[in-house]
């Protein structure tokens, strides 16, 4: 079901608030009672309550977040201390809201039994609050508290009154003082589909005579863009009228569920002890703008535009538009790449060298513009890795609690950026790795103490950029991986022979944990699943054109390193020719290319050919042999060679010849070719021909020497 743009906005914002509140709660656990953090959490619940209020059908959200907000308010006022139990309760509330938001996004509505789902949480919140207030009443009996589960709209109204300009407050107070008239404050939040009920909310407000104050605001910050729907009501009216409450109530008789009223008294302008520091208006920019350049939602994203250093302005952009832009840029690159062919054709076929020169010059200009365009378009898709990291504080907390292990999580390099697709797909492999660390790597506190280690283990999530790759590491200071056990296990499982196990060094041996069907822990836990983890991680990462490497020091910890391309959309390739076909080799893999190699540089060592490059002898492979081509596979005299670096090792590949290096848009393979290990994708070259991009790691894997 297609959500209205208002509901979509609500889901997006709601999710942000859930995330902010959850990370705030985890912060609180670490730094006892930071008032800013407490206020932040309170605000998130407050906003969730307020924005859900304009959708009557989401009443369950309003009710639940309202209860959470009330309890949080007591914490904020120092009347209740937050403990681990309360943190769990609040986190469970946020989880519930998160699930509901997901349900809304998928089906357009809350689950039918939403109220049942939250009943337990709701009563827990209310009883916590009652206990706290009970205590409070006995101690401070004199204070009159009228906060008997008041309705959320009414609280909004109170907040608004408290936040009025001092001048407005003063004049209202003096009006209250002098006149024997009564004054009524009201907050009217029409339901989003109120126009379709024939309501004209502003007309109702206008009917109220003698409005002393009126503020009309948007409930959700909706942009006036192409998705703007004029017939979804998104306004809130806050006002003070010189009329008694019954008169105002009567005017809003048909919409009484959308209005709250307060008879104005001077007390309403006195804030409860600690002053309420909050905003009723929803912020336009997210609190951590750098974390949100493109939101994770399927429908929409947020793009950052730096508006003069001080303040970033963000516009939400439909992700579809960005994808279309990327596609168009890709098409443009292909079109641009045809210009050199045109230059050659103008010179040799049409015999017009001057024209060829002119086209060539224009090619330069277009090249320049297109690369700027490409860079900007790619930048729009870039997201900080924080996006993939943000779930881990919670995950590590919950799992370590469950396992009775003490773990501290350190995250570094969260602002390292990568393409949205890479960031999105990074999540699952990382969960596997972190769970593995928690489950298998980190020891129990007693084991750690016995081993002379600190009781609390440290798991580090680290991201950094390495040329055009993003590297993400998961490191723990646990028991590490025992290469001997890995060797045994791998032989036992028939993954390798005992001979090759013996000839393997330790570093190679521990890579075996990534082999399919390998698991080091015999005990199946519900946390890491049935030990299918590592090969799944391996497959996910390689499917993105990346690699996984394990490092370990037995007894002192292990480190898993994922290396992924920062951007998958456009890449530089070297086009090579072999047996009349063209192939693309990712330029990042290429260290060097040599034309017309003399046979004398090829030496045979132990029956395998090697190529001498700068005094070093590199293994030489033939592309035709590696790709199992039919026909003549011999290395011909005057061949060309490409030196590529695979897993840190340089090897030479013999090809017939090569053409130029080109920027191409790599399209994923579809259909039958999808499973083909040698190819990463395909692309269309400037002359319109289709070329496969080689996955060099796979091509070299089976060393079929000629």
């Amino acid at each position, binding site marked *: 079901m297609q959500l209205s743009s208002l509901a979509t906005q609500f889901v997006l914002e709601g999710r942000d608030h859930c995330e902010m509140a959850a990370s705030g709660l985890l912060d609180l656990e670490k730094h006892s009672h930071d008032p800013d953090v407490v206020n932040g959490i309170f605000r998130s619940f407050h906003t969730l309550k307020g924005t859900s209020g304009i959708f009557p059908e989401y009443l369950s959200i309003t009710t639940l977040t309202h209860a959470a907000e009330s309890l949080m308010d007591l914490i904020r006022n120092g009347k209740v201390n937050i403990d681990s139990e309360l943190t769990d309760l609040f986190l469970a509330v946020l989880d519930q809201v998160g699930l509901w938001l997901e349900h809304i996004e998928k089906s357009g509505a809350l689950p039918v039994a939403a109220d049942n789902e939250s009943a337990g949480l709701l009563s827990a919140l209310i009883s916590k609050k009652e206990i706290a207030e009970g205590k409070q009443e006995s101690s401070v009996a004199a204070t009159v508290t009228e906060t008997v589960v008041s309705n959320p709209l009414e609280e909004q109204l109170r907040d608004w009154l408290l936040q009025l300009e001092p001048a407005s407050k003063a*004049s209202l107070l003096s009006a209250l003082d002098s006149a024997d008239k009564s004054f009524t404050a009201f907050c009217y939040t029409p339901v989003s589909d109120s*126009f379709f009920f024939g309501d004209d909310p502003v007309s109702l407000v206008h009917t109220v005579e003698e409005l*002393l*104050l*009126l503020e009309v605001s*948007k409930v959700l910050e909706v942009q006036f863009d192409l998705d703007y729907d004029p017939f979804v009501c998104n*306004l809130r009216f806050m006002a003070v009228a010189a009329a008694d409450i019954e008169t105002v109530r009567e005017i809003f008789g048909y919409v009484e569920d959308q209005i709250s009223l307060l008879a104005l008294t001077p007390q309403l302008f006195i804030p409860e002890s600690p002053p309420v520091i909050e905003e009723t208006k929803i912020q336009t920019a997210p609190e951590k703008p750098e974390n949100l350049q493109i939101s994770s939602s399927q429908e929409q994203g947020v793009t950052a535009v730096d508006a003069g250093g001080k303040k970033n302005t963000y516009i939400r952009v439909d992700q579809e538009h960005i994808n279309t832009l990327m596609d168009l840029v890709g098409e443009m690159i292909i079109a641009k790449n045809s210009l050199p062919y045109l230059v050659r054709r103008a010179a040799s076929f049409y015999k017009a060298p001057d024209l060829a020169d002119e086209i060539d010059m224009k090619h330069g200009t277009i090249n320049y513009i297109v690369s700027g365009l490409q860079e900007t378009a790619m930048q729009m898709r870039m997201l900080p890795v924080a996006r993939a990291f943000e779930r881990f504080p919670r995950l590590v907390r919950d799992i370590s609690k469950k396992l009775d292990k003490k773990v501290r999580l350190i995250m570094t390099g969260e602002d390292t950026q990568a393409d949205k697709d890479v960031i999105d797909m990074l999540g699952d492999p990382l969960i596997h790795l972190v769970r593995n660390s928690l489950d298998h790597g980190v020891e129990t506190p007693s084991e750690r103490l016995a081993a002379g280690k600190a009781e609390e283990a440290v798991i580090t999530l680290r991201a950094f950029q390495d040329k055009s790759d993003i590297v993400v590491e998961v490191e723990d200071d646990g028991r590490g991986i025992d290469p001997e056990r890995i060797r045994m296990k791998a032989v036992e499982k028939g993954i390798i022979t005992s001979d090759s196990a013996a000839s393997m060094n330790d570093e190679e041996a521990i890579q075996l944990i990534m082999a399919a069907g390998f698991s080091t822990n015999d005990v199946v836990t519900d946390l890491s699943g049935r030990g299918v983890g590592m090969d799944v991680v391996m497959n996910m990462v390689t499917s993105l054109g990346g690699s996984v490497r394990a490092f370990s020091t037995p007894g002192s910890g292990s480190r898993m390193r994922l290396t992924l391309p920062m951007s998958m959309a456009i890449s530089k390739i070297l086009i090579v020719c072999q047996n009349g076909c063209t192939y693309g080799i990712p330029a990042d893999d290429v260290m060097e290319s040599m034309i017309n190699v003399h046979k004398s540089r090829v030496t045979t060592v132990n029956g395998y050919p090697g190529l001498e490059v700068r005094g070093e002898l590199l293994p030489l492979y033939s592309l035709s042999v590696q790709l199992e081509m039919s026909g003549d596979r011999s290395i011909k005299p005057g061949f060309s060679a490409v030196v590529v670096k695979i897993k840190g090792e340089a090897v030479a590949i013999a090809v017939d010849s090569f053409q130029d290096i080109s920027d191409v848009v790599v399209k994923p393979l579809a259909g039958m070719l999808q499973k083909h290990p040698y190819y990463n994708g395909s692309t269309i070259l400037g002359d319109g021909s289709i070329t496969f991009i080689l996955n060099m790691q796979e091509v070299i894997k089976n060393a079929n020497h000629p």
Partner: protein
Amino acid sequence: MPITLETSEKQSFISIRGVTEPDEGDELLSLLREHPGISVDLSGMEHLHTALLQMLISAETPIAAWPQDTFWRKCMTKNPPALPLPEETP
């Protein structure tokens, strides 16, 4: 037609007159989209349906002339004046 596009040599603006109906939302929306930043003359406006009011607020449309009824000015001013506007003495 209560909603019209007025063009003179110097500038164009949208004029909204009389009582508006929600259905006119589409019309106003397309005018606002076709002329970003255009201002609106409300001097002859008697009633603005909420859908249209909301649109003017969302598009942050500059108001070239306010209607006689000060209520509308309060609706569209971000920080409403604390006291009744000068011309509105009960």
